[in-house]
């Protein structure tokens, strides 16, 4: 795989936020990046398509979804977990 999961997730989030990849930090929150609820749902869709995974996310209860979106690092970790689970 050419890019790591981290790099690909950051690229997806950067595109959604209309930012340079360099401006998306692991510590950034979606709020920091100006991504609203629609942007989040769109990002999750892009992640699912890119990694061929299903992300368990319900916009009504983001905290209950077993998919931590509190920061870019948390999203990367959650995607890595789902990718590993798919490979297993």
């Amino acid at each position, binding site marked *: 795989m050419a890019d790591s999961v981290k790099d690909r997730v950051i690229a997806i989030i950067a595109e959604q936020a209309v930012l340079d990849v360099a401006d998306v930090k692991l510590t950034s929150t979606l709020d920091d990046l100006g991504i609203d609820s*629609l942007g989040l*749902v769109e990002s*999750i869709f892009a992640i699912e398509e890119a990694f061929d995974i299903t992300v368990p*996310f*319900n*916009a*009504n*209860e983001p905290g209950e979804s077993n998919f931590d979106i509190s920061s870019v690092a948390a999203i990367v970790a959650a995607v890595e977990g789902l990718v590993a689970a798919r490979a297993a």
Partner: protein
Amino acid sequence: MKRVVITGAGTINALAHDVPGTLAAFREGRCGITDLVIRDKERLSIQIGGQVHDWDPEAHFNRQQIVLYDKFTQFTLLAAREAVAQSGLNFDGMLGYDSGVVLGTAGGGVNTWDDNYRAVYEEGKNRVHPFVVPKLMNNAAASHLSMEFNLKGPSFTVATACASSNHAMGQAFHMVRSGMTRAMLTGGSESMLCFGGIKAWEGLRVMSKDACRPFSLNRNGMVQGEGAAVFVFEEYEHAKARGAVMLAEVVGFAMTSDASDIVMPSKQGAARAIAGALRDGRLNAEDVGYINAHGTGTAANDKTECAAVADVFGHHADRLMISSTKSMHGHLIGGTGAVELLACIMALRDGVIAPTIGYEEPDPECALDVVPNVARDAKVDVVLSNAFAFGGLNAVLALRKAA
């Protein structure tokens, strides 16, 4: 300005195939949401809905009709037959020229789109049935009602997503009130419970996998429904002269646009529509005893709607009742306001307030009397019906007890 009364009602939805059955279900607080029975269900992540079961079109229509009627049209015709029969009106003579039909639907013949896309894309067919277009068009149901009942006045279909029926009934109200027509068939219909119809909604990630629990802290989304409701709106003197039974009077209507976001609701837009309906009906806030909520069971709608009600009604917000019957029949999208108007009529006429079922935990952001889980006897004289659509288009009707 003329007065406008409702002299007939009909429906088919997940709770029952007629009005008496639906009102009985409202009184019992019965849930009509079940596991879906549709093709390719196993490929859906959402597998529940307020589906109409035991539907047998051949019991109501002949073969030539069925090839022209998508399910949303079939539902509309069934509901309209019940409504017209109750009203006792016959449109065959001059009344037909003074009467029309305005209906709401968001998707029109979604099952027809779905079936025929499957045929050409999935099955690789290069030919479809000749009636695909007249079957799927959004105005098909309105046109078939006009033909079945000889309605030759203003007739059309309104599409404003989840507010379609309320917008439609508002138009019908305006026409009769202004004297443009003497009677109107109005309401709405939706039949989106097919693979493509549900798959599209899944994408937004606002759907619940287990239940519709409006206003409850643990709510986790909306549940789709299907069906129709149709009403006869009639000019008051016309109804009175023929001794018709008046189910309720329509007294006010208002519509607003949020002009802000394609999916997120706005408290201001909703509040302006509610206040506008009161103003249009020359009502005081204190007159309102019951509100049939939009109450979708999503995080966003329910708290925004409660905040809007609190803004408009002030202290009276704590005294009125507000419930969402979507917890029982699901969200009928473009047909939802029509089915929900039945709960308004029941409140005015029978003194029974339909409950919000599935209510498990109070939400401090929805701290109103939502009539949790059990129907309630209460005398109310004025009710409202809210509808707030995706796209920020809001439509609120005000009804008064018939006198």
